[in-house]
């Protein structure tokens, strides 16, 4: 599968997950980049299977808090940092599962527990395919990498 093909799967999965479960619609802006001055939350989900790999997710703090509030049905101000982080981990987990459900594999993928990373530069592994979307409150990026090339499921 080409990098373009992987990015299309990433874009479809990210859009569907944000819309259906987080009640967030991505804005149609080309080449979004994260705010330079704002702190970022970075989450990672590793998976084992054929092939193994990882998905990284990066989002600025304001957008992360807004996403968490929508997901939990709570007021933004009432959320702890822990709750926001947990929701962002769940978001990464669901996007990763959705992407893996769209690719061919002879084995069942096993997702490890998602975790927050303290170093924003660890967002994307070397050679990862990155897809970013603009949200009302910032930018969300996902980076997907696998040990071997992957193929989309024939529909």
């Amino acid at each position, binding site marked *: 599968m080409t990098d373009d093909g992987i990015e299309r799967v990433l874009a479809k999965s990210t859009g*569907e*997950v944000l*819309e*259906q*479960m987080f009640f967030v619609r991505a804005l149609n802006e080309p080449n979004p980049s994260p705010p330079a001055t704002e702190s970022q939350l970075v989450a990672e989900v590793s998976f084992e299977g054929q092939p193994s790999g990882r998905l990284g997710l990066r989002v600025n703090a304001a957008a992360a808090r807004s996403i*968490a509030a929508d*997901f*939990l*049905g709570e007021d933004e101000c009432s959320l702890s940092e822990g*709750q926001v982080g*947990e*929701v962002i*981990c*769940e978001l990464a*987990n*669901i996007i*990763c*599962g*959705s992407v*893996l*459900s769209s690719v061919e*594999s002879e*084995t*069942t*993928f*096993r*997702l490890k*527990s998602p975790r927050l990373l303290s170093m924003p530069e660890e967002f994307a592994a070397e050679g990862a395919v990155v897809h970013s979307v603009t949200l009302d409150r910032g930018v969300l990026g996902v980076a997907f990498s696998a040990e071997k090339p992957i193929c989309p499921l024939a529909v």
Partner: protein
Amino acid sequence: MAYRILIVDDSPAMRTFVRRILDLSGFEVSNCLQACNGLEALEILQREPIDAVLTDINMPVMDGEEFLRQIQNDERLRAVPIIVVSTDGTYNRIERLLALGARGYVIKPFRPETLRLELERTLEVRCD
């Protein structure tokens, strides 16, 4: 009629979300209990009457597959409908979990009405 639902997921955020989605979808819940893994869910099922279980697969202590095996090995619990709610939408996984006794399967991401419809189908709720 309102139903007693057990939500099993190691993520507190996901449990909160599913509970919220049940409300948003219009599915009537009289009592909603929560467990963070299969073992805790089994303990609740031993002491509480539950109409349906919504369970994740990947959980520590006891995962969704082992939870389903334990349910099927227990005559008193076998009749409780289990619906898997998972990010894993691969054919192999769905087939295996249905073979283990899952009555329904909802793939994340899902819309609120999808969860409601799967519960209604599993519980054979009539919508007049």
